[in-house]
Every structure is written in structure tokens, then in C-alpha cells.
């Protein structure tokens, strides 16, 4: 190398640095040894190896660094969530139900039991097609079992129809006997006769309609009992009977006897933890006029606890009560001379509840996720007494109350003092008379039924005549509870999938969010419960599926509203970048550049060596 002592023109040096060497140059170099283009020794690997080691050690350190700045995210089963929501949204849940019909005294007709069954099924499908497939409906694919019974013989469609032929002897006697009490006795008798334990062997509930043809009766009476059966008695032709039976099945037993404009199933007033708090409030608008108290304990024991018991599969219900004073309503009412009372109209209802003065939310549960339904008995003050609700058609409301979906209901109770216009002892504490109180609570039960989306009247008007509904002393009859249970399950599952879906979207959109193991576990449990609920639905186990669906929803909500979800990590990527860049940016620049330069130099030098070697040869 030292031998090279000839001055090198700068242009030559420049060219030698260029990666490509022209053939002319090589020729030139062949003439003499040029230190710019040739070298005699093999280029050293020392420095190149050194820089490379530094670079490699940095690279090997990177995963550790990455690990150290990584935040913990529990793996969530996104795919399963998507699968579940797709499954629930695509085909609405349909419960297996069994329908049975008994035709009595239709004589020997041409059509057999099987034909009747087929015609009822087709009618039912036609009816069901009219309204969109609602969530939590029955599956109409199952066959309708039909029994034909007359005085002499008895035909049955095959299957496990547990109708005992010849059991009808006492039937009509019972029917006659129970005419006075509105059919209650007959209902109980049918229950014992059908001996239904509610569910059949292949799952699902069994609903029965008994059609009795009696030519001596003028009217056709259709009654739905407290249990899972209805009866149609009267002078009815077979075609009419078939139509009527299908209607009873579809409109009443499957769709809960809902009327137009009633509250839909998605507004089921159940808290996301599966609890309802029924908060009963007695509001004395002005205690200076009169103060009223109630015997709530008695009401609770006699009227409310059976309802709480009946609704247990749907929700865990707690009852609370309080009496509040100085709680005027915030809407106006006017004096009507004709009615001799103060009138508030349906237009005033949105302003009736005075949220400033009615501090109803005093329950401990108010902070939690339970649903609180407020039931308010409003005792008007002397200035606005008696206070009556006028309906849009000019009539006076019989209940004198109204509901507000998902909030609760209000009933106005006018004390007797304001009718009599007598001076009361304002200091004394009066009790609401028992009859009045019972009446008010009956209104409340009706309103509770409405809040649950059920019919509050005891009859059900239909295109083809009215249907009488027998009321249960528990407030809800069994087929209504079945309906609520189906709806509740379906709604819970929908809610669960939407919650989980939004959770997965949220988690995926925020990559720097910490997800604790607890959330992962809750999501897992929720999915498992949802799957169990779906499989129970297909087996027709109503109560179990309701319970599992409730668990699924409550776990999903727990995961979504987990306190740690609220605090999105402040350790954002920008933060990480700001902390690490002052060190890693300059250092990595040095290290990478050094490695690249050494690599280039090594390539160049080895080429020089190769040229020299080639020239020597």
C-alpha cells in the first residue's frame, strides 16, 4: 500500500469511490498498481464484525424493550363473540311449543284428526306471517295434536297427547256450575283434567284449547284460563273453530295477547343485574292540608309478595316503600264546573312528575345497576282536590293514573275529605282506607303488567270477536309468564350480544387499552352462559334459559362497565415515543450508519483486493 506514491488526480479518486468501475479503468489499472483501486492485503473484518455485533445486540434487545412497554391485554374471544352475535341476529330465537286441541261433540265428520291438525297449522302460519317474526316467539314447525271426541268415540292424532278420552262426562256439568264465578272453577277442573305439568317430554310448554260444540248456546264464548289452556264453547262450525283456535294459539299463547301500541319486549324493565326494585311512594302534596299514611306492610304481604313470587324466574324483585311530603305536581290543572273537580289532561302528563321536589331515588339500589320502578300514589292538596285525569276522548280515566315506560307509574288518589268539603284535623295522621288502598294497588298491578308489555284489561279484542281472559290472583297467569320468560330470554340474549359486540369493537379500536384478566373471564362466562341459554331454548327449558340469559347479560354488562375499562391507559404510544426517542433515535442512527458504512467499505475493499489478485494472475 505504501508503495503507492504517485499523486492521484481528484477525479480518479472520485470515480474509484463510485460502485461501478468501467472497463477502461481496469485496463488502465492493469498497467500499474493503483492504490485507489487495488490492495494487496485482504480487507480486515474486525471493525465490520464489531459494528455488526453492536447492531445485532441492539436488535436482540428490541423484543425485551417491546415486552417492557407492552400493556397487559387479556385475550378476548373476538371470533366467538362475532359468531354468537351472528347466530342470534340471523335467526331469531324460537322456542319449541306444543299445541293441543280437543274438539268435543263435533259428531262424525268427514275430516279426520290429522286433517284438522294440518288446517290449524296452516292457519297459524298465515297468522304468524302477518307480523314480523318477533324475538321469543314459538316455533310453528311442530305439529298440532288434535283429539276428536264425541259421545261414542274418540280419535287422536298420534303422539304423546295426554288427553284421556271419555273424561268429558263431568265437563259440561262443571261448566254450568262455574257460570256464576266466571269460569274459575271450570278452569281449575280443566287443569286437573289435563293434568299438565307444564312441559311435554320433548320440551316446550303445552298449550291446549278445548272446543265444545253446543247447539243450545247462542253465543260463542272464548275464554283463556289462568293456566295454559283456553276453551271455546258454543254453536260453532268446524271451519270457524279451526280459525278461532289458530288465533288463540298465535295471538294469545304465543304473542301474549298484546295490543296495538303496547310496550315492546325490548323495554323489559329489568336491570342489567337481573334485579327490579319496586319502589312505592306515597306523596302528600301538601301535609298542611292533610297527611295520609298507608298500611304498606299489609299490602306487601297480601298483594305484592305473590306477584314477586310469580315473577321470580324473570327477575329478582325487591319491594321498598316511603312516604314523602311537600311534593306538589309540576303541571297545572283546571276546575271543571260540570265535573266539579280539577282536571288534568293527557297533555299535562309529561309535566306531572316533579323531579325537583319528588326525591324518589332514595334507595341504596339507585347507585347500582338494578332497575327501579317508581310507583307513586299522589295525594293532591286541598287546592286541587279532587283531581281527575281526562282522556283525549273527553272521558274521565277510571284508573286516574298513568305509566311511563321504564320509569314507573303514577296513580292519583283523592281523599274523601275533598269530596265532602269538611274541615279535617290537619295535625292528625290519617290512613288511606283499606278498600281504596286495595283498589290503588290493583291499578298498580295493571300498570306493572303494562310496564311488562302485557294487556291490562280482562278481555282481548280481536278481529273475530272478543276473548275473555281470566285473571290470576298472582297478577300474571301462567301462559303470560311463559310469554314474558320467552321474551325476557330473547331480549337478554340480544342485549348480551350487542354489549359484547360493542365491547369487542371498543377493545379493538383502542390498542393501548389495558384489559384485565377479570374482564376476559367475565366475557368468557358471558359467552358460556349465552351458549347454555341458546341450547336450553332449543330443549324448551324456559326457566333455565331465562336464568342463563340473565347471567349472560349481567356478565357482559359487568365486563363492559368494569371500572378499569373507564381508565384508558395514559401510557399512550406518543408517551412511549417521547420517553424512548431521546436515547434510541441518536443511538440507533449511529449504530445503523456505522454498520452500513462498514459493510460498504468492506465490499469496496474486498473488490480492490480482488482486482489486485486478478491483476497478479
Amino acid at each position, binding site marked *: 500500500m505504501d508503495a503507492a506514491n504517485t499523486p492521484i488526480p481528484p477525479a480518479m479518486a472520485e470515480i474509484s469511490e463510485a460502485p461501478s468501475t468501467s472497463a477502461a479503468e481496469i485496463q488502465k489499472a492493469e498497467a500499474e498498481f493503483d492504490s485507489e483501486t487495488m490492495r494487496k492485503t485482504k480487507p480486515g473484518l474486525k*471493525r465490520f464484525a464489531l459494528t455488526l455485533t453492536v447492531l445485532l445486540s441492539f436488535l436482540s434487545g428490541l423484543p425485551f424493550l417491546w415486552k417492557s412497554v407492552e400493556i397487559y391485554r387479556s385475550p378476548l374471544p373476538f371470533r366467538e363473540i362475532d359468531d354468537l352475535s351472528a347466530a342470534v341476529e340471523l335467526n331469531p330465537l324460537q322456542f319449541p311449543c306444543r299445541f293441543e286441541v280437543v274438539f268435543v261433540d263435533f259428531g262424525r265428520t268427514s275430516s279426520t284428526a290429522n286433517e284438522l291438525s294440518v288446517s290449524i297449522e296452516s292457519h297459524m302460519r298465515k297468522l304468524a306471517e302477518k307480523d314480523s317474526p318477533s324475538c321469543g316467539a314459538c316455533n310453528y314447525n311442530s305439529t298440532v295434536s288434535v283429539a276428536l271426541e264425541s259421545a261414542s268415540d274418540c280419535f287422536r292424532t298420534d303422539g304423546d297427547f295426554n288427553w284421556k278420552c271419555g273424561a268429558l262426562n263431568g265437563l259440561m256439568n262443571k261448566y254450568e256450575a262455574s257460570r256464576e264465578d266466571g269460569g274459575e272453577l271450570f278452569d281449575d277442573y280443566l287443569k286437573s283434567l289435563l293434568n299438565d305439568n307444564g312441559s311435554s317430554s320433548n320440551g316446550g310448554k303445552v298449550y291446549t284449547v278445548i272446543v265444545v260444540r253446543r247447539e243450545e248456546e247462542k253465543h260463542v264464548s272464548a275464554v283463556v284460563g289462568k293456566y295454559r289452556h283456553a276453551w271455546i264453547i258454543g254453536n260453532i262450525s268446524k271451519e270457524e273453530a279451526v280459525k278461532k283456535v289458530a288465533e288463540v294459539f298465535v295471538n294469545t299463547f304465543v304473542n301474549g295477547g298484546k295490543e296495538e301500541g303496547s310496550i315492546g319486549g325490548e323495554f323489559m324493565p329489568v336491570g342489567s343485574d337481573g334485579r327490579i326494585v319496586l319502589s312505592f311512594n306515597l306523596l302528600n302534596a301538601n*301535609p298542611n292540608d292533610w297527611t295520609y299514611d298507608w298500611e304498606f306492610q299489609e299490602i306487601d304481604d297480601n298483594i305484592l309478595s305473590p306477584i314477586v313470587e310469580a315473577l321470580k324466574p324473570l327477575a329478582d324483585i325487591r319491594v321498598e316503600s316511603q*312516604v314523602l311530603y311537600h311534593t306538589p305536581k309540576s303541571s297545572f290543572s283546571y276546575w271543571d264546573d260540570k265535573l266539579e273537580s280539577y282536571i288534568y289532561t293527557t297533555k299535562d302528563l309529561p309535566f306531572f312528575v316533579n323531579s325537583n321536589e319528588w326525591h324518589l331515588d*332514595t334507595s341504596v339500589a339507585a347507585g347500582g345497576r338494578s332497575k327501579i320502578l317508581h310507583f307513586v300514589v299522589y295525594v293532591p292538596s286541598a287546592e286541587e282536590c279532587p283531581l281527575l285525569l281526562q282522556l283525549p276522548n273527553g272521558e274521565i280515566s277510571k284508573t286516574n293514573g298513568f305509566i311511563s315506560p321504564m320509569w314507573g307509574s303514577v296513580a292519583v288518589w283523592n281523599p274523601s275529605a275533598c269530596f265532602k268539603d269538611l274541615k279535617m284535623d290537619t295535625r292528625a295522621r290519617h290512613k288511606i282506607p283499606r278498600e281504596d288502598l286495595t283498589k290503588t294497588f290493583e291499578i298498580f298491578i295493571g300498570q306493572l303488567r303494562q310496564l311488562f308489555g302485557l294487556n291490562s284489561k280482562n278481555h282481548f279484542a280481536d278481529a273475530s270477536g272478543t276473548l275473555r281472559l281470566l285473571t290470576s290472583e298472582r297478577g300474571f297467569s301462567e301462559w303470560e309468564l311463559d310469554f314474558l320468560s320467552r321474551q325476557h330470554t330473547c331480549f337478554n340474549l340480544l342485549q348480551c350480544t350487542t354489549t359484547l359486540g360493542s365491547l369487542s369493537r371498543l377493545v379493538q379500536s383502542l390498542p393501548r387499552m389495558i384489559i384485565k384478566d377479570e374482564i376476559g373471564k367475565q366475557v368468557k362466562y358471558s359467552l358460556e352462559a349465552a351458549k347454555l341459554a341458546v341450547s336450553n331454548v332449543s330443549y324448551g327449558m324456559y326457566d333455565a334459559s331465562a336464568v342463563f340469559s340473565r347471567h349472560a347479560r349481567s356478565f357482559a354488562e359487568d365486563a363492559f362497565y368494569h371500572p378499569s375499562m373507564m381508565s384508558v391507559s395514559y401510557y399512550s404510544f406518543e408517551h412511549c415515543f417521547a420517553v424512548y426517542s431521546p*436515547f434510541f433515535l441518536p443511538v440507533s442512527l449511529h449504530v445503523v450508519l456505522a454498520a452500513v458504512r462498514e459493510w460498504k467499505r468492506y465490499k469496496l475493499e474486498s473488490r480492490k483486493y480482488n482486482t489486485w489478485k486478478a491483476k497478479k494472475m
Partner: protein
Amino acid sequence: MSRLKFSFLLFLILLWGSESTAEEEKEANEEFTEALLLRPLPDRKVLAHFHFQSSAPPTQTYGRHHYIFPKSIYQLVHKFHIREMELSFTQGRWNYERWGGFDPISSSNAKPPGVELWADFDVPQNQVDDSWKNLTHALSGLFCASINFLEHSTSYSATQWSFQSSSSGKLRYGTLPREAVCTENLTPWLKLLPCRDKAGLSSLMDRPSIYRGYYHSQRLHLKSDEFDTSKISSSGIVLEQTLTVVLQPNTFSGKKLQPSWSLSSLFGRKVTGKCSLSNSSNVYVQFQQNLVSEENESREKSEAQKNEILIHEGSHNNPLFALSHPPKRVIKEVENFQKEGSILYEYSVEDYDEYGPFELGLRWKVPVIWSCQQAPLHASRFLLGSGNERGAIAISMKSTRSNDIEIAGLDDEKACSLRVGIFQVVPWYVKVYYHTLEVFLDGESQATMDNIEKIHVSPSEDKVSPGVMEIVLRLPCSVKTAALTLEFDKGFLHIDEYPPDANQGFDIPSAVVHFADFVANMSFEDNLSKEIPILSKLQEKIPVRSYTEVLLVPLTTPDFSMPYNVITMTCTIFALYFGSLLNALRRRRGEEERLLKGKGAEKGPLSLLLSRLSAKLRGKQWEPPKPSSSSSKKSSVNYKLVAKVVLVAGIAIVWQFYYQ
């Protein structure tokens, strides 16, 4: 005849029986009472003390439904199994020297600034802390306050004997000295009253006037024996709500005369009748004993002058002051052998309504100066030392030379002693060395253990629990001043633990000083007063208790941008070091020298400029380097530069796109 007698006897028994059952029924009913006590204070101010009490009979006999008792409190008691609880929201400091420290109101209603909460639970020992945590959350929701900050174990402590004579070990105590108290706390408190502030005495609570006062303390005391299985007949839940305010009547009277006031001038409102649900709603005006004695003196004088016989009952119109209405009743405290009892004038607002509201006025006739009765020792607390490293807490107690010391002390002069209990909670970042506890009596250091009757210390644990000291001192009666000092080091907090505005300093909660031998109670002559809760409360024997000031300890607060500065600085230094080290390692000295020699002629634009500059400085003619065929080369260099800039810009754009 005997039969008749027998039947008569039977009748009597029946009658008695029915009466007794009627009485029981009456007993087991919910009750609500309201009362307002007004008291002129020596420093031209007026104390107004609202007292509301609602009680619920035990659930076992009465059931869950209540018509007066607030549902939320009932549910709270049942959910957390509370045996006793006290919550107070206070703004301002009770002036013990001027407003007195030896009466029931100052002992139970003078509270430390901010929030104070203590609760005694009836749950197994291992669940007490959980119950406390849940309770703080429930209360913070109920009263719109940040009581939930008491949840952390560093902010509450267990006390042994400071709040209850019998220690159950299930009592928890916590304070938030810096909690601001305002209407949002009063409104939920009022919601617990059946009439809220719509009717009754609470309608006087005009927010601007009560928050304008010098002292404002809103308190809620809860006592229940629902869960006490040992007791056969329980009294249910008693909820006591008090609001104590010290107001300055705005009058234009001269400086010397005490200001005359009326209810409407104090509160800006009048009472329009009682809350229709309350059993009694009374207004009391209290004149303290020293004032009363002065009154008696002046009366004696006037008696001597005018020979006028003043009936005691007519004393609402006496030489010192005049009240606008004749009182319904005058209640006189039973006089002790030395002191004069104070006088209460009772008014009932029952007979007033909207058209004739109740308005009470007090007019002073002559200038009066009197003083309130003081607690035996006046305690104050301060910090010693300077700097951000260490310091000392001193609690000094000055004797007020109250006459009552002799009462409590034993008859023997030598054995006479004064028992003073001190309860002090110190947060963990103030690391108190309890072995440095020193007691000074009249300025002289004493052997510590000589004067301590009992002591209970639980040292603080970093980030886990605060330091608690409970101590009962036994001081000789003749002591003039007593002082306690404790040294401490200031700790360091983690950067996350500093509150916002950390430079303001950290509060050490008030110490509680209580005098177990002294009971601040009044005793009234008539038995009737026992039925009225406020009067029975005044007669309750509670030990004299006072609170010291809140201490403000400045801690070293870091510059909160410091961590990032440190990171940047060290990283830059490391990067520089690392880069130069790497460059030094891969340096080829010989080759570089040769290159330099070879490329000596060629210079970049910057070195060209430099050489020109140096030439100019040296005063020589600058010779431009020989022109070479570098024009093409230069353009290629420019092209390379542009390419590099474009590359960096491209990376930046891609980066921006990717991360937005």
C-alpha cells in the same frame, strides 16, 4: 257484692292493661322533632343551632315501612350494620376562646374543618374495614361529597377510647380537612327531613345567610341498636341532624352595644309555622350563665334603686335586654354550688302560620360584656422547625383558669389532677418519631412517663396506614401551660401520589383533645324537658371535647416535568457517549491521515467559506482553490441531498398516515 268487687277489680286491671298497651303503642312510633336554639355570643355574634331528630322503632316489632324516617338512612343502617355513626361537614373554625368550650353545644357540635366521619359497626372484626369502605362510598353518593377518599387505608384509623368509652375495636375514624362544604351538601341533608326546607324551622335556612356566617357545621348522628341481640327491647334507630351556624347580625348600632337582632335580620326569612309532621317545634333563646349573673347583679341594683319587684317569669323584659314576645316557658338550669345556671326561653312556633309568621327579636338595653365558660385547658397546635426535611409538632395547652377545675379534682390538693386525652392522626408521609415525645409542664421538660396515664401508639406504615397516637395525660391541677412535642421527618411521595396543587402543602387533621373528667351538661329542673330531644341532648353527660387547628405541612414537591427532563438529558448524554465510542472503535487513523493528505486540495463549500474567512482575518489575499471539474460532481451531491431530504419527508408522511 264480692262478685261486684271482683269485676270492678278486673275492670281496673283491664283498664290498666289497655292503658299500658296504649302507652307502648305510643312509644313504638316514629317521631320527628325540630328545634332551634339561639344564643347571643360575647363577640357580637349569634349562635344558631338547629336540631332535628327522627327516630324509628325497631324493625322486629314495627316492620320495614316508615312514614317519617328517611328510607335511605334506614337502608344504610341495615346494609352496613351501623351501630353508631357521625358525619359532619364544617366550614370555619369554632372559636373556643370567645364562643366557649364548656357547654354541650361546643363539645358536640364544634367540629374540625372539612369532613369528619366515624362509624361503629356491628359486624365481625374482619369485615369492619370492608364495611367502612362501602359506607364511605354510599355516603359520598348520598351527600355529594368526596367522602370516598376516606376509603383508602391511609386515610382512616381505628380509635381505642377517644370517641367511645368502651372500645369495641370496630370503630373507624377519618377526616378530610380540605373538603369544601356548600349547598350541594346541605340539600341532600335536608332531604332526610320529612319537610325538607319547605316548612317548619328549616325554612329559615336561607342559603346565602347561613353560608355567610363565621362558622357552619352540619352534622348527622346515627345511633341504632337493631343488631344488638343481647338487648331485649331495643329503641330502634335514632337519627339526629344538627346545623350549627355562627352569624353576625347586621345592625347599625354603636360599637359598644351588643347588636340587637331578629330572626328575619339573621336569616332573612321568618318561620311560617311548624313542620306538620313534627311532634314539637320550639325555638329557644339561651342566655349563658355569666350573662345571667350579670343580669342578676344589675337587677339587684335596679331593685335597690327602684324598689321594683321583678318576677322571675317576667324576665324576658329585664334591664339588660328585651325579647319581642313573652316566652311560653322559662327553663332555668339548676344552679351548681358555685356557678349560676343559664336561662332558656322557650317559644313554640305551633300557633303561627303564613299570615302571622313567627318573628322573634332581641333588643339590648345596655352594653354588656360577658365571657363564655372555657374548657379547663385551651389547646392549640403548631409546627416547629423549618426546612423541607424535618420538623416537630407541638400541642400546647394553656390553662383557662376555669373555676370548675376544683369540681373535678379531688378534695385533696395534692392528689388533684386533670386528665387530658389527646387523639392525633398523622398521615404516613409525615413520619413521626414517637420516642421523641416530650412533655413540658409550665415550660419545664418532664419525664415523659410520669404524666402519662395511658398511651396507645400505632406507627404509620408507608402507603398503608397513618400513624395514630392516643394518649391520656394526667396533669396537676395547678398547671398553667402544658406542651407536647413530637419530631418528624417529611417523607417523599411517589409522583403519582401528589394531589393537584401540591405546592399548597399537606394537611394534618385536627387533634382531638378531650377531658374525661369534665362533663358538659346542663340540668333542668322540670321533668318535662326530658321529653324534648334538644333539651335531653343538652342534659346528656358528654365529656368536654375540643379540636385543634388543622396543620399545614409543606412537603418537598418536585418539579413535575422533572422526570421527563431527566430522561431527555440522560438519554442525550448516553447517546453522545455511545455514538462517539462507536466512532472511536471503528476509526482507522492511518487511512484517514492519508486521505486527508490526498484530499487536501478539495474542499467543500463550508470549508471554502471558512478558509476565505480566515484569510480575511489574517489580512491576506484569498486564493480560490484551483477550479476542477467539480461542477458535475456538485450537482450529484445536490441530487443526493435532495434524495435524502425526500426520503426523510416520505418516512414522516408515511408515519403520519399510519398513526392517524
